[in-house]
């Protein structure tokens, strides 16, 4: 739905612009923070409701669903991560559900929330032109979110490596693999560093890329007039797969990376 006075380029750019407050590095994407925190709280609140009432008795429908998700995550963790750890499973659950919910915002028709925000902002008198309101509703199409997640995981990878192998073991791993020879220590270090840094980078960029591309296609579809309805439906159906898959991949890789970090070679 292109507004009269907007060119397609302006329309797309408008949709891909965050609502930003502040300047330079210290700017904050308010829409990203708002939606991600809202969805995170929604996740924790709805799951906490079950947790508070949970008993071994006959479960309700919502409890059944929650337990299904929890058990699915628990099985994934148990398959990949050997050993006891109190953090990994809740971490995986949070990643999976939170990313899924944030991705799910992609299925809300692309114009609804931004348009609503535009006119709300205009009526409330924050802006003189409704088009000055920028509102992105999918937090995972913001690199800040995906990198925040992946760098947190990266920090955990390092913490786990040191916790399970010791600083010495971790340093040795960085310098004496894959080639176990002192002369090749620099080569090893470069290789291992790339391997290590590739993990958060690939995690963040994969999620961002998939969702950003999906969002972009939704925006493009929204510009083709009446035929957008079947096209939007078809892409949305396909995108459901992407949404769940990306959440699952992020969770699974987190578990695998932490499992690798905490086991000896």
């Amino acid at each position: 739905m292109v507004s009269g006075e907007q060119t397609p380029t302006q329309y797309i750019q408008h949709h891909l612009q965050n609502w930003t407050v502040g300047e330079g590095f210290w700017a904050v994407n308010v829409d990203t923070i708002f939606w991600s925190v809202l969805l995170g709280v929604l996740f924790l609140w709805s799951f906490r409701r079950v947790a508070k009432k949970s008993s071994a008795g006959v479960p309700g429908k919502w409890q059944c669903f929650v337990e299904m998700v929890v058990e699915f995550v628990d099985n994934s963790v148990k398959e990949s991560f050997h050993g006891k750890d109190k953090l990994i499973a809740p971490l995986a659950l949070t990643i999976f559900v939170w990313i899924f919910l944030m991705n799910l915002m992609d299925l809300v028709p692309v114009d609804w929330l931004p348009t609503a925000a535009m006119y709300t902002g205009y009526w409330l008198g924050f802006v003189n032109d409704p088009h000055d309101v920028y509102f992105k509703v999918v937090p995972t199409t913001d690199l800040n979110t995906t990198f925040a997640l992946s760098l947190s995981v990266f920090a955990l990878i390092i913490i786990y490596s040191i916790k399970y192998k010791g600083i010495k073991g971790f340093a040795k791993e960085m310098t004496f693999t894959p080639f176990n020879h002192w002369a090749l220590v620099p080569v090893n270090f470069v290789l291992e560093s790339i391997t290590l840094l590739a993990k958060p980078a690939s995690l963040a960029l994969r999620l961002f890329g998939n969702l950003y591309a999906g969002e972009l296609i939704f925006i493009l579809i929204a510009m083709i007039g009446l035929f957008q309805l079947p096209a939007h439906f078809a892409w949305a159906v396909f995108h459901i797969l992407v949404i769940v898959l990306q959440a699952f991949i992020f969770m699974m890789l987190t578990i695998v990376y932490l499992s690798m970090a905490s086991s000896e070679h």
Partner: protein
Amino acid sequence: MDINATIIGQSIAFAVFVWFCMKFVWPPIINAIEERQKKIADGLNAGERAQKDLEKAQEDIAEQLKEAKQQAAEIIEQAKKRGAKIVEDETQRGHEEREKIVASGHEEVEAERHRAREELRKQVAVLAVTGAQKIIEREIDENAHRDIVEKLVAEL
């Protein structure tokens, strides 16, 4: 599109969410699941055991029933035997009784007949003597011919 302070906010939010999940969400749910799994496993075990018990009880019942039937048959058989024996004994006794009664009747009749004959004989003798007396009265002395009369009576 730029990386900015949002990343810090998101990291903090993520950390808080994970902490909350680890503290308040995950443990109760996973505990409930595990407890229920245990309960279900126990229930299935109990069910299996009960099934086995039931089968065993049914076997016992069948066996006891068979035994009871056998005993009943034995008892009936004994009863029949005893009944037959009682009937036989009674019949025997009845026969004996009848024989005895008949025999005593015979004896009585015999004795009666004997007595009657003796009586009759005596009376005939008296009659004969009386007749003879009457016939002979006129010519013979009674005392002189008593021996002949006696002999006659004896021959009767």
